[in-house]
């Protein structure tokens, strides 16, 4: 409860600082929109050459992509850890964080969150809606609840993987370039996994489970039963990966050697 109050305070402060740069906010919104449209155009171009992709129609692939944007936007809002190494390790801001009575990871999440990224949720819902309008989908009363649960599970998967990668910085001083690589892999999760090679499918399911962020839950909502089992696993995979990440983080904090003066 107290943590939540502090969270609210940080959010308030962030908005105050952010609203001072209105132009910045608009530019971010527009670039976001442009990059999403490029991805959509890519899908449309692919389906200009073929009617089906591994048994999936254009509308279905667009629906999956739209769904993927939901956890993606929430992830981008709260787990903005890209500059962690520069800002907290090299510049030594982690020292300050560690002298405050709130969990270090929570502080860093609160300090680097970008609530404006939540706009992506609406973009995602719009894209999903467009895909669904071309399809004849059956919506059970509990499907919206599952949608939320799946989305949160996906956020945890995404967050867990990137927290784990970020905590590498706590163990070693040298910079690693593994984040952008994994980030690229994450894009595979927004297309049907059955179009990939078996090894890639295995990786996306069990090692870097990005398929749980996009494809598995979306396929359930598209009434495709083949992956139902995986879809139900989404929240569990999310919790497990996130828990492992937090453990790695806590261990990393013990290893942390501090920046020199």
């Amino acid at each position: 409860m107290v943590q939540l109050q502090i969270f609210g305070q940080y959010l308030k402060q962030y908005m105050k600082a952010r609203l001072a740069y209105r132009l910045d906010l608009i530019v971010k919104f527009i670039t976001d929109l442009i990059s999403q449209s490029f991805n959509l155009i890519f899908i449309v171009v692919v389906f200009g050459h073929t009617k089906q992709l591994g048994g999936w129609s254009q509308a279905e692939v667009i629906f999956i992509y739209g769904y993927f944007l939901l956890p993606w936007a929430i992830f981008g809002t709260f787990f903005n850890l890209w500059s962690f190494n520069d800002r907290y390790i090299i510049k030594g801001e982690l020292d300050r964080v560690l002298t405050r009575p709130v969990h270090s990871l929570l502080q860093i999440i609160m300090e680097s969150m970008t609530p404006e990224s939540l706009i992506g949720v609406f973009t995602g819902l719009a894209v999903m809606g467009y895909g669904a309008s071309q399809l004849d989908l059956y919506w059970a009363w509990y499907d919206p609840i599952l949608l939320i649960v799946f989305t949160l599970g996906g956020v945890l998967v995404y967050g867990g993987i990137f927290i784990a990668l970020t905590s590498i910085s706590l163990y070693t001083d040298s910079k690693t370039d593994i984040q952008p690589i994994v980030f690229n892999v994450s894009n595979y999760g927004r297309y049907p996994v059955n179009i990939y090679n078996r090894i890639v499918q295995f990786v996306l399911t069990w090692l870097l489970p990005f398929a749980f962020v996009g494809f598995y839950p979306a396929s359930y909502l598209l009434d495709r039963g083949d992956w139902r089992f995986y879809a139900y696993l989404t929240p569990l995979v999310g919790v497990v990966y996130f828990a492992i990440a937090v453990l790695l983080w806590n261990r990393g904090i013990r290893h942390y050697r501090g920046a020199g003066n």
Partner: protein
Amino acid sequence: MNAIQAEKLTKEFQIYQSRKGLSGAFRDLFNRNYRTIRAVNEVNISIPQGEMVGYIGENGAGKSTTIKMLTGILQPTSGDLKVNGFDPHNQREEFVKTIGVVFGQRSQLWWDIAVQESFTLLQKVYRVDNQKLLDRMIDVLNIGELLDQPVRKLSLGQRMRCELVASLIHQPSLLFLDEPTIGLDVLVKENIRQFLREMNKEFGTTILLTTHDLTDIEALCSRVIMLDKGNIIYDGDLTRLKQEWGEGKKIHLELDQEVSLSHLGQLTESLPVTWSKNEVNKNLFTAQLKGNSITASEVLSLLVTSGVPIHEMQIQEVSTEEIVRKIYQEG
């Protein structure tokens, strides 16, 4: 209960040593050379509640590492450590509520938001609502006009005063100050020192002060701990430090007429005094007293009874800075 109780506190770092040249770099890929460095070596520190202690040492002596262990940022390699009754690293979140920290070279405040907002946020983080204390600190440090400005627009002196308030917002019983007056002008320094004295007197705040500026320590601390290469080489009174290591006083004399150095030497033969003469002004002489066994008046009475015409005189105490320099040079 002591505010700080450290026994055989040690911190070791593994340093990765790279080999020379390209072939060396290639070998490093497969077989890395590590060297263990003891930044802090079995240090014992005990500081009672309410004391103001200066912690000094050259760059790389292990000061920052010690402070980081005491504040819970780093985990000690070995040794026992209790600060305010807590194990700083393992009970970090509970522990840090009882301490305040100012790292002079790094801001503790949020860069983009106004000072007042930072204070509000900190009050929430520490779950305190002590507006009276806050108002008073703002008043004493004279930062009322800065409250609505973002931190990045403040000057160093302004920022440092805000940092101090931020570090004391939850009224901690122990305050760590790392170079709090670095780069500040004399007036701000004095303002800060006055404020710290007040806090110490009124709330019994224990203060551990790390600094290169020994005038800070002279102004605030009765006790000083000196660190060199990870070991404590002195721990005790500032005055005792001066007595043990001080070269003794200097007497500067301006005479009415020129006198030969050997004449002065003969007059004070019985005392451990060495004389020197100013190269430019022939009438200026300096007597260096060895140790603390003799007083200036003994020297002066000898001179006066022998009829040396003294026009003007000045007695110079040894500065702490000189003493510290001497200790480090002699090892």
